[in-house]
């Protein structure tokens, strides 16, 4: 009797063992495969729709035709119609928008930057002339009518065959600088489409049909549009952390003069050098990298100025405070500041923007010692090479 009871119990136990987990999973999988049904419920009515009340503001002019994640698109106060062969690319720093432009076989880069209305055109021209290696006094902007705008335009060419086409367009209460760069031939071929683009520029508000948010006044639908739960320009928290960004882009190479000694080690530094001079003077040379544009050019310049005791500059003074240089096919911002006082400090810094990262090559130290090392520092910066993408 006892044996029969044990056998029965073992049968039940053994039979149940395989059935239990299998049944459980079948039930779970059936739950997963169930077809969703029509659902009816009462919900509070949405408030009246107000584009300005949206966390993302009014829809961008390029909302239905621009690349996903164009950071400034959603906040651009301008709308435009892209000429044939142009497409918008991600813009960085103070740029409102950036484009790659094709005209036949010619390819050039176009940027759109906003400035205060009182900015002197001569200051712009001086800055642009320096970019192409010309003396600022040789020319200036010429008036031109583009669409509804009375603009000023300048066409510059460098001795090396580089071209630059720039226009100042007053729209509303702001001044807009649009600039095409490339070879002289490419820039020349771009002029008709560039002027057509300038003529299409309009304040975003004027493009709203009958008070309605605009749909697609801007880009011509060249690239895949995607609506994301992250609006254009919204930064994911993780992406903004330095650990997630370091090493994401291309690491450059450079050549440091042999007489430079090793500088202080730091987790933030990719390269660190030190030059010792007479009387205990030193130069600290640091190579650092950060994701993005690290707050933009103006805050960076002012931070460096503050470090050597100089007052901050305004946006209007930007063109005179920094210049653009070409190093190994890459464009860089070059700044040179000398402090004041009995023992002034001097900072030479080059900022590269490559692969979504900013690379800083910065030398700071005693002004006299920096002056004596200036040639070596410039050679150091000019030796920087980024790998081809």
């Amino acid at each position, binding site marked *: 009797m006892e044996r029969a009871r044990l056998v029965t119990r073992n049968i039940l136990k053994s039979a149940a063992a395989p059935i239990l*987990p299998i049944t459980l999973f079948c039930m779970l999988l059936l739950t997963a495969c169930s077809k969703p*049904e029509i659902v*009816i419920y009462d919900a509070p009515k949405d408030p009246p729709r107000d584009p300005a009340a*949206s*966390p993302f503001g009014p829809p961008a002019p390029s909302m239905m035709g621009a690349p996903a994640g164009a950071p400034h698109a959603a906040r651009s106060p301008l709308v435009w119609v892209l000429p044939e062969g142009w497409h918008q690319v991600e813009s960085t720093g103070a740029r409102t928008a950036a484009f790659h432009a094709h005209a036949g076989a010619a390819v050039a880069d176009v940027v759109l930057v906003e400035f205060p209305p009182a900015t002197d055109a001569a200051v712009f021209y001086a800055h642009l002339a320096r970019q192409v290696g010309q003396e600022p006094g040789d020319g200036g902007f010429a008036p031109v009518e583009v669409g509804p705008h009375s603009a000023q335009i300048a066409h510059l060419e460098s001795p090396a065959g580089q071209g630059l086409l720039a226009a100042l367009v007053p729209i509303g209460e702001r001044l807009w600088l649009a600039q095409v760069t490339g070879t002289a031939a490419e820039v020349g071929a771009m002029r008709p489409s560039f002027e057509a683009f300038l003529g299409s520029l309009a304040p975003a508000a004027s493009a709203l049909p009958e008070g309605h948010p605009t749909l697609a006044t801007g880009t011509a639908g060249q690239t*895949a549009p995607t609506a994301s739960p992250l609006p254009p320009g919204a930064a994911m928290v993780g992406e903004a952390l330095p650990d997630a960004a370091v090493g994401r882009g291309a690491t450059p190479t450079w050549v440091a003069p042999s007489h430079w000694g090793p500088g202080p080690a730091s987790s933030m530094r990719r390269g660190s050098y030190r030059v010792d001079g007479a009387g205990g003077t030193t130069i600290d040379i640091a190579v650092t990298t950060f994701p993005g544009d690290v707050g933009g050019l103006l805050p960076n310049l002012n931070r460096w100025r503050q470090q050597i005791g100089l007052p901050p500059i305004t946006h209007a003074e930007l063109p005179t405070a920094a210049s653009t240089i070409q190093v190994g096919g890459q464009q860089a911002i070059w700044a040179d500041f000398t402090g004041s006082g009995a023992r002034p400090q001097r900072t030479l810094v080059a900022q590269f923007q490559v692969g979504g990262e900013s690379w800083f090559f910065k030398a700071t130290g005693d002004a006299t010692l920096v002056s004596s090392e200036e040639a070596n520092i410039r050679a150091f910066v000019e030796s920087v090479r980024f790998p081809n993408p």
Partner: protein
Amino acid sequence: MSTATTPPTGGDSPPPAQGAAPSSRRIRGPIGTLWHHLGSLRITVFLLAFSTLLVFLGTLDQVQYGIRLAQERYFESFFAIWQYPAQWPGGTTFLAHLGVPLLGGYFVGPLLVINLVAAHFRFFRPSPAKIGIVLIHAGVVLLLVSQLVTQLVQKEYYMWLKEGGSANYLESFVENELVLINHSAHPGSDLARVVSIPIDRVQAREAIRHPALPFTIVPREFFLNAAISRREGRQGLHAPLADRGLAARFDLVVEPRPRVTQHNERDVTTAVVEIIADNRPLGRWLLSNVFDDRFAAQTFEFEGQTWEIALRIQRQYLPFTLELHEFIHERYPGTNIPRRFASRMLLHDGTHQEPIETTVQMNEPLRYGGYTFYQASFTPDDTASMLQVVRNPGWTGPYIACSLITLGMIIQFWISLSRFTRRRANAEKEAAAALNPNPTLNLPRP
């Protein structure tokens, strides 16, 4: 069917200890044979190694496909195909066309659970000394089951809040819905009657009828992803059939697009639907989840009632409201590197007299009403905050499982330690006895 205990027959069975009972029981019959093989420890090792390989390949392919698609392909499927990456050596040769079939997560996971249970019954002998092993096995099985439950029932949403703004609903990261909203259902009330139709019904392009709808909805066109733009003289793009609403007003054209895969992108799901009442067409509307609250609602009148029609990101309404008081974004001095993100909010719940003040920040989520709100993102001007919201009714499972495993390991370790100390004490006694075989001859110490 009868059962009998037999010695282990598989080569993978652990050898029985000397003098111990046989370590395997065999159920007779075909089920017994199947059960016997399912409990093979070789299968356990194979499945564990294969799981590691699957996780490795699935993680690598997240770069190519994005997290969501890679998860679907490798872990939420019964079978997967792994493609030789083009970036690997020889990736541009014939290897690029090499597809290796793999067992997916839905196959490996349940098989591992069945194997674990079968092996347990096959080899395990109940004994108080093995209570720790029972707890560890139970914990591992519960962990696997919890993962499956989480995958099946967990929902993830997000909520955008502008400073000073509030919201009482969440939006899905991936799902869309077709909604017909009757704004006249509750006259004098701020409530509207919402009829939510699964997007699959629209994709199937079958006529949709429901007692709550006095008309029929006929999906005419459907695009999983599309580009919508104004025609503006451009040729060659698809003009939708819509003759009402935004499409008609702005002369919109639609261009089909391949689906996006990256985690920070979303398909512009688009459809054209026609409303028919009493065999009379009321109109055709172009609907898209890109027509969010920045665009005018698309509405129509029918039998004196105002209806709104929309294809929108699926909503989940909450029984409470969150209001963003302030978004805080602190940076390390002199840099643009974020140091702290936080959303200071007021939680309005009808069950409380006063609003509850709460702050959500990194690693400090808000848990309320079965939802967990995490700080996730923000707008560049720091005036709006995005919360990621998770609802997982099975969230306690992994905690219980890990507790069981920990408890089991502690008990098992304690039992082994006790056994070891007992044996050592006995060995010392025996050694002492061996050195001093005749204790009666010992003289007392002075």
